[in-house]
Every structure is written in structure tokens, then in C-alpha cells.
């Protein structure tokens, strides 16, 4: 295969080896510098966390200290939250009321057993994380279905599964099971391969377009990677310009090229009259002797072999050839 950017593989390996060698060295410097800091602060990670970390540590079901490994643990950033800015002051949780059999839960909890409403949970995040890609969160499908930020995101960990391309699909598949099945079909986008994942096309935080797509229309979204299908064309195949999903299903299909059904039947679902006996294809009479029980000839109709209708109508998305009205060139 042609490679216009030279052999970047070698560069990648060089970088890989360099960083592999450099990282322990950098860590060594850090360790030396930090060895002088012998004062153990009362707060372990975040400002004012001592009242929490006196009980909660890394052995919890949801380890709390690893928040220090994330951007939420950078104390020098004035916006960095405290435990209570997300979980609430939780006075009764910290000081168990006399007579209470069980310690009340914090004001806001985010685990699976949590009774905190999704909107309240999300407010803890939206206080800072609104705008930008989350501009259309309010009123979006996920918001309306009471999906909480923490339904998908994990905060107290360095590795948030949904923000890693190789693990993200598993998080989305938890609810979107149909898409899990589709992505395993013979023709599929490289979702399970971790190359084109859910968030490459969808913005789960809200969108002005359909299906939480990043762009305003399906086609605009597809043209991000498939710009050669965009045109403008002298001869436009209107269903292709209208909506890619008229013919394709994006997650996976048992038909080649992510088509919704097999050609020529997909084509004949619209082209019910005219040349090539498309009515005959629909009725099964003109599919060629090979495909009928009483076959005696060895010649199938040309619309039934190779790429079917696309054997000749190759420029099916549109053509710029003066004689391309029928998309054959």
C-alpha cells in the first residue's frame, strides 16, 4: 500500500523506545525531589479531604484516593473540586446521628445503589462541565432518559473506560445491545477493533442532529471520513445525497459495504420499473437460470453476479462525468 508519509512505523518505534527509557528516569528525578518532603499532610489528595479519608481509602469498592491520579486531583488548579463539592457536605454521614442504626449515606452518591436523582448527580458535574461538547446536554436523549454522567464515566480512577477507544464500546454496549450485535457482523465499522468507536460519530452529551450525532445531519457526519461521497456531483443520486442510511446501516451488516439489504434487491426496492427488468428481479423471474430450481443454463443475469447492479453503475453516489447520468462512469 502506498505510504505518502514515509515509514512512520520506524519513527513510532524510535519514540516508543525513547519514552520507554526516559520515563523511569523522569520518575527517578521526581522520587528524589519528593523524598525531601517528609511532612505528611492531613489531607491526602484534595483540600479538606481529611474528614473523608480518615475512613475512606483505596480499599473501597470505589477507591477514593486514585482521584489524585486524574485531572480532578491537581490542587494547583483553582477549579479542582473537593470531596464535598461533588458529594455534598454530608454532615449526617460524617457525624452519625445518635440513635441511628446505620450511618446515613452522603448527600450525593454516584454508585449503582444510589438513590440520588440523575439530575442532582449531574449537577455536580455540570457546575464545571457545561458548554463546549456538552452544550446540548439539557433536553438530549440521554438527559431525558435520566442517564447520569457517572452511568458512563468513572471519576475515581486514572483509566476512565469510556474515554479509552479500546474499552469505550463495552461501556456503550451495556445499554445499546443491538449495536453490539451489529458490530460483530461481517461488514462493520472497526468499532470492536478500537479504531472507529462510538464517540467518533456520536456525541453522547447532546447534539443538534439526529441520533446524537456530532453533526447536524447524518450525511454531514459520514462525510467527515467519507468526503469523496459528498460531491457536489453533476449527476446526483438523490437517495445518497438525502441520507446515507437510506442504503447503509452504520454499525454492521451481513451484506457487503454495510448495506441494509443485499443488492440487487436493495436497488430494486426503489427501481421497480424501467430497464434491466427490475420488476423481474423483484418477482424472481429475471434473476438468471442459475438461481431458479429448474436451472439448466450456466449463465446468471449480470445483475446477480459480482457486484450486482454496481458492476456497471459504479459511481452510485454520484457522477461528474458528462455521460454519467446513470452513474456508469
Amino acid at each position, binding site marked *: *500500500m*502506498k*505510504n*505518502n*508519509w514515509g515509514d*512512520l*512505523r520506524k519513527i*513510532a*518505534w524510535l519514540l*516508543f523506545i525513547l*519514552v*520507554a527509557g526516559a*520515563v*523511569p528516569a523522569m*520518575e527517578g528525578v*521526581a*522520587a528524589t*525531589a*519528593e*523524598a525531601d*518532603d*517528609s511532612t*505528611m499532610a492531613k489531607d*491526602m*489528595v484534595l483540600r479538606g479531604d481529611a474528614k473523608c479519608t480518615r475512613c475512606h481509602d*483505596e480499599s473501597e469498592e470505589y477507591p477514593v*484516593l*486514585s482521584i*489524585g*491520579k*486524574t*485531572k480532578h*486531583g*491537581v*490542587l*494547583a*488548579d*483553582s477549579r479542582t473540586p473537593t470531596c464535598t463539592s461533588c458529594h455534598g457536605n454530608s454532615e449526617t454521614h460524617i457525624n452519625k446521628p445518635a440513635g441511628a442504626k446505620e450511618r446515613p449515606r452522603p448527600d450525593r452518591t454516584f454508585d449503582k445503589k444510589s438513590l440520588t436523582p440523575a439530575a442532582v448527580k449531574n449537577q455536580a458535574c455540570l457546575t464545571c462541565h*457545561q*458548554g*463546549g461538547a456538552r*452544550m446540548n446536554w439539557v433536553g438530549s436523549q440521554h438527559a431525558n432518559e435520566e442517564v447520569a454522567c457517572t452511568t458512563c464515566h468513572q471519576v475515581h480512577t*486514572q483509566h476512565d473506560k469510556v474515554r479509552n477507544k479500546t474499552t469505550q464500546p463495552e461501556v456503550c454496549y451495556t445499554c445499546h445491545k443491538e449495536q453490539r450485535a451489529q458490530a460483530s457482523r461481517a461488514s462493520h465499522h*472497526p468499532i470492536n*477493533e478500537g*479504531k472507529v468507536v462510538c464517540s467518533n460519530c456520536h456525541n453522547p452529551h447532546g447534539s443538534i442532529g439526529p441520533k446524537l450525532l456530532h453533526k447536524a445531519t447524518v450525511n454531514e457526519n459520514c*462525510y*467527515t*471520513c467519507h*468526503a*469523496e461521497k*459528498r460531491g457536489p456531483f453533476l449527476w446526483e443520486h438523490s437517495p445518497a445525497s438525502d441520507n446515507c442510511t437510506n442504503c447503509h446501516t452504520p454499525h454492521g451488516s451481513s451484506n457487503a459495504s454495510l448495506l441494509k439489504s443485499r443488492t440487487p434487491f436493495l436497488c430494486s426496492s426503489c427501481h421497480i420499473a424501467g430497464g434491466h427488468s427490475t420488476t423481474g428481479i423483484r418477482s424472481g423471474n429475471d434473476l438468471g437460470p442459475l438461481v431458479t430450481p429448474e436451472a439448466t443454463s450456466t449463465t446468471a443475469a*449480470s445483475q446477480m453476479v459480482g*457486484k450486482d447492479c*454496481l*458492476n*456497471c*453503475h*459504479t459511481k452510485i453516489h454520484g457522477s461528474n462525468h458528462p455521460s454519467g447520468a446513470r452513474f456508469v*462512469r
Partner: protein
Amino acid sequence: MKYIKQTLLGRTVLSVAIAIIGMFVMTYANAEEPVSAGSEAETIDVAVDEVKRLTRPDSELEVGVGHVSEDSYKFGNFTGLQESGAYLIGNLQVIKREQGGTHYLEVIGRNLGLDNAQELQIKGGEQGNYGFSFEYDELPRLYSDRYQSPYAGMGSTRLIKPAGWDGTIDTTPSGAIDAPVAATVITTPMMTALAANMKQFNIDTKRQTMGLSVSKQLSEGLEVYTSFKRDEKNGTRLTGAPLQIGGGGSRGTLLVPEPIDYTTDIIDTAVRYTDEKWQAQVGYYASLGLVSCISVSVTIF
């Protein structure tokens, strides 16, 4: 035609991964191990180190070797593992956060060493002030390694017939429209020489994507953002080359490798303002597509 097992279980992909997750844990543990037990100061040191280990970002380096038992284009589609034999693979995740500051640097590499499936991301900046990112990604799309054609020049825009193929073309428009061209035009010597002239050609494409983006917080809630992405797709796909002999004469088509050379540049820039009560964004988005190969010519007879 060689039969290749399609089940993953039938395929013996043996891989041995040497994970060095926790490398830095050992670094800390070895550097700060107490000389004698029982000292209160040393106990505090150990506790401090433990907290540091649990609260500072980890970096990971993964190196492995694997083996693919047989060649398979299907198996290598999107993965770059189409060739049999041993391969080396590396994954990398370096996360550095400034202690006492807000600078950060993240380097993530995946599938390093794999043919046409490598990925590299570098992100850095100062939290709450500015950020930049660089991304490089490769994606192999393998269609077929069993395609054969007698024509020379496959992969180029000009396909040329083998020497000696000088058939006569019957342009009489009296034959049945669906009658195969070969039945009336191709001469016996040409068909005899067909097998000898067949050449194998791999039908595949490769995408290479490179992206750069920069963002800057101008003031509280006001941010500018700009990104540039170049996506190049090169290789071949099978396309039909339809032909017709004379007006209303016999029709036929042959599937030929069409060269693919697409370049798409995407520029996305925006100014965003976010307030507790309202949000606004003004942006500019440009997608510039370039299709370098627009035709294939085939010398049929």
C-alpha cells in the same frame, strides 16, 4: 483456493505480553524502603510513599510478541495482522502531571509495531489555561488478496492487455443484449493464454490520519479552539469497468482495481462562551476533499 478457517478459536494466535504496569511502584518502593522497622519517622515515610503511589498518575509500558498461524486478509482487516509469523507489539501510556503546578503531558501509543494499524496520541498543556494535542492513526482496510486479472499495471490508472491479445471485435448489433462478450469475440488462443497471464493483486486501502488541535482559555468561560485534521486514504478498491460493443450491442463488465488517492483536510475552529445562565459558540468548519484519481482506462482487446 486456499481455505482459511474463519473462527478465532481455530486460529492459533499465540501472544505473550510482558506488562510493566506498576514499574514506578517498584521504583518508589525500592528507593524508600525503610532500613529498620519500628522507627516512627520511617513508618511515616512509608505511609507518605504509599499515599504518593496511590495518588500520583501511573505510566504503563507494554511489550509483547505474538504469532499468527496463517496468512489471512480477513483476519488482518482493521488489525494489520494479515501475515503469518511472529510480530512484536507495544502499547504505551505515559501520564505526567506537574507536582505543585498544572502542566500535564500524556503520551498514548497503541499497536506500535503492527503493520498499518499504529496509533499515537500526545496531549499536553496547562490545566485551565491552554492545551494541545497531536494524533496519528493508521487503519488498514483489506478487501481481497485473491483477486486476479490478466491486465498489467494494476494499481495504476492504466490497465494494459497482455502481449498477443489482438482479438477482433464484432460490432454487429444483432446479438442478444445479455449475451456474454466472451462467447462471440474472444478467440480461442486468448482464452488458452488466459491462465498463464493471470496475475494476483491485493485489493486494499490504508488510511492515515493526523490531527492537531489547540485550545486556549481567554478568560473565565471564554475559550478559543482550533483543530486541523488530514485524512489520507490510499490503495485500491474493486470497481466495475462496463463496456458495450456498438450501439445496442453486447454488454459486459469487468472488475478492476481502481486506484484510491483521497485526501481530506478538516479545519474546525470555534469561540465558546459558557456562563451559568447561557452558552454561546461561534465556529467555522471547513472540509476540503481532494480525489486525485478520477478515472481508470482499460485496454480490453
